[in-house]
C-alpha cells in the first residue's frame, strides 16, 4: 500500500482504527506516520457511510482503499458496494469510474462465532462490475494489491485472517511486480488429481500434498487467487492432464466460486473426466463458537482426503 501511496497522491486509506491504532490487524502499521491524517483516515463505526463516501470520492477522481476491520462488517455496507460501486460505470454508460479497493480479513478467525466468521466471496463473486481476488501468500498479496489499486474498477480484496501470520519473500519496491487479475497459480505439479482452492485452505493443502506424495498420490495444486475474473484455462488444462478434480473452499457449499469452478470444469473438460468433480468445503451451518465444533465445521485435511479417495476410487 505504501508503495502505491508514494506513487499516486490520489490513493488514500479509510477505515476503523487504520491510523492511530495502526490497524486492528496491523496491516496499516506506520502509514499514518508516513502519510499523515489527510491520507490515512480513521473513520467512526459507519461502514455504509465510509464505503459510500469512498465510492463518491472515486466517482470524481480519487482512488480510495477502504479497510473493513473484517469483511463481516461489509455486510452493513453491502448496498453501497453492490448497488453503487459495482453499477456506477454501467449506469453512467462509462462516464464515471469507481476505482475503489475494498479490503480486509475474510472468513473465520478463531472461535469468533456466527456473526464474525463469514467467508463473503460467494456474495461478491455473484455481482458483475466487481472484481474479487483472494491471495494466499505474501507475494501474491502484494502483486494483486498493486493491480487492484491501479485498476479502474471496484475490487473486493480478500485477505485470510489466519494467513496474516504467514511469512514469505516479497519483491523489492523497485521490482514493481504486478500480478494480473484472472491468472491462477500452479502451486505444485502432479499427475493423479487436480486440487483447486483459494485463500485459507492453501497452506493446509500444500502440507497435505507433501503427505500424500509420501503415500504415493501426486496432487496438482492450483491456487485460483483471482475469483472474478477466474482463470478457467489453467484449471481446465490441468484437469485434462490429471482427469480428476477436487475443489476445496471455506465458503458454504451452496453455490459460490467453488461451484462455479466445478461448472466450468464439467463444461470444458467433460470428456476428460474419470470421476465426478467433488468439493470439500465448510459445513452448511452458521459457525459455532466451541473449538471442537468449529474444527468440525471448517474444511480440514480429513474432509479433503475423503474427497480425494472418492475421485481416485480408493475406497
Amino acid at each position, binding site marked *: 500500500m505504501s508503495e502505491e501511496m508514494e506513487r499516486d497522491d490520489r490513493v488514500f486509506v479509510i477505515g476503523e482504527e487504520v491510523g*492511530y491504532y495502526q490497524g486492528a490487524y496491523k496491516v496499516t502499521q506506520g502509514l499514518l506516520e508516513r502519510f499523515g491524517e489527510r491520507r490515512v483516515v480513521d473513520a467512526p463505526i*459507519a461502514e455504509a457511510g465510509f464505503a459510500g463516501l469512498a465510492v463518491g470520492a472515486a466517482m470524481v477522481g480519487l482512488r480510495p482503499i477502504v479497510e473493513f476491520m473484517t469483511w463481516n462488517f461489509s455486510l452493513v455496507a453491502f448496498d453501497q458496494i453492490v448497488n453503487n460501486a459495482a453499477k456506477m460505470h454501467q449506469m453512467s454508460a462509462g462516464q464515471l469510474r469507481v476505482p475503489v479497493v475494498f479490503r480486509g480479513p475474510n472468513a473465520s478467525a*478463531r472461535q469468533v462465532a*456466527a456473526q464474525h466468521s463469514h467467508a463473503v466471496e460467494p456474495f461478491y463473486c455473484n455481482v458483475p462490475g466487481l472484481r474479487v481476488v483472494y491471495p494466499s501468500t505474501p507475494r501474491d498479496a502484494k502483486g494483486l494489491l498493486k493491480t487492484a489499486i491501479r485498476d479502474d474498477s471496484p475490487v473486493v480484496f480478500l485477505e485470510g485472517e489466519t494467513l496474516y501470520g504467514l511469512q514469505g519473500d516479497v519483491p523489492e519496491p523497485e521490482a514493481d511486480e504486478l500480478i494480473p487479475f484472472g491468472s491462477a497459480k500452479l502451486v505444485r505439479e502432479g499427475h493423479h488429481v487436480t486440487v483447486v482452492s483459494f485463500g485459507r485452505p492453501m497452506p493446509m493443502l500444500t502440507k497435505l500434498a507433501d503427505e500424500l506424495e509420501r503415500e504415493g498420490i501426486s496432487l496438482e495444486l492450483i491456487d485460483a487467487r483471482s475469483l472474478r475474473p477466474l482463470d478457467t484455462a489453467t484449471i481446465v488444462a490441468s484437469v485434462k492432464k490429471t482427469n480428476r478434480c477436487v475443489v476445496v473452499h471455506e465458503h458454504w457449499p451452496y453455490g459460490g466460486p467453488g461451484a462455479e469452478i466445478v461448472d466450468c470444469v464439467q463444461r470444458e473438460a467433460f470428456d476428460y473426466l474419470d470421476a465426478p468433480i467433488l468439493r470439500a468445503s465448510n459445513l452448511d451451518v452458521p459457525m459455532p463458537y466451541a473449538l471442537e*465444533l468449529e474444527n468440525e465445521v471448517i474444511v480440514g485435511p480429513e474432509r479433503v482426503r475423503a474427497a480425494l479417495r472418492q475421485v481416485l476410487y480408493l475406497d
Partner: protein
Amino acid sequence: MGNSQHELQPMYRTMYLIRRFEEEAARAYSLGKIGGFLHLYIGQEAVAVGAEAAIEKTDYVITSYRDHGVALARGSSARSVMSELFGKDTGLVRGLGGSMHLFDAEHRVLGGHAIVGGQLPLAAGVAFRARYMQERDVTLCFLGDGATNIGGFHEGLSLAGLWKLPVVFVCENNRYSMGTPLNRTTPLADLTLKAAGYGLASDRFDGHDVLTVRDRMRAAVERARDGGGPTLVEVLTYRFRGHSMSDPGKYRTAEELEDFKRTADPCALARKQLLTSGVAEELLSALEQEVETEVMDAVRFAEESAPASRSSLDAFVYAGSSGH
C-alpha cells in the same frame, strides 16, 4: 439503615458478582480455556445493575457483545454463562455462541449482538410487539458510544421515535470505541443531542453510582411504559480493561486509567456507601465470600461440563420440523 441502603445491598452483590465472574473469566482466557473475543464489563457494572433495578422481570433486554454483565444482572446463572464462555454443552446457548452471543429467553435476554448497532432495530421490534399486543412490557437496549455512528442506530431511533415505541436506548459512553476516543468519532460532546432529531426524550448522567442509574432509568422506563415514547439515555462510564482481551490499550495513559479506578469504581463506591450507612464490615465480607463461592463453583462446573455436542451443529439452523 435507610430504605435505599437496604436496596443497595443486593445491587452491590450483583455488581461484585459480575466483577469477580469476569476476573475469573479473564484468568481462564489467559489459560486458553476460553477462546474468541472476550469483552469485559469491569468498571461499567453499575449500568447493567442499576438499569435492571429499574425494570420488571417481564421486561426485555438486548445488548451488544459486551454482554456478561447484562445477563448476570438479569438472573442468568453464573454457571450457565461461564459454561458458555468455556464452550460447553451446559452453556446458555450450548457452546454455539460464546462470550458475544448470550441469549436467555427465560430471563428475557434477547442476545448479545456482535455487529455494532444491529441490536437497535431489533429492540424497536421487540417494543413494537408490546404496542401491537397492547402489553406494558418495556425494552431496554444497551449500546456503546461508538455505535451511535452506525446506520442501525439512526434507523432504530427513527422508527422508535416515529411510533413512540416503549423502548429505552441505554448508551454506555465508556469514552472509547475500541482504540478511538470519543472526540475522534463524533463532533458532539453530548451524545443525547442525537435524540432530538428523532423525537426521542433524553437523559444524561454519571453511571458510577448504581442508585443514580436506577433512579434516572426509572424515569425513562416509566415514560416508556406509560405511552410517553422512547428515550435515549447516555450513561457516562469507563471500562477498566481493554476493549477485548487482545487489546493492549496503548491509546490511553496509565494515569487516566488509575484516576478512574480510584474515583469511579462502581463496586468500591457502593461498598463505601453501605459501610457509611452502617452495614457491618462482617456482613459485607460474608456476602463477598458467598459470591466467591458462587463464582468458583461456576468455574468448576464449566470445567467439568461435557463439551459442546456435535448434534447442536445442525439442530438449530432451521426452526420447526420441515427443514432438512
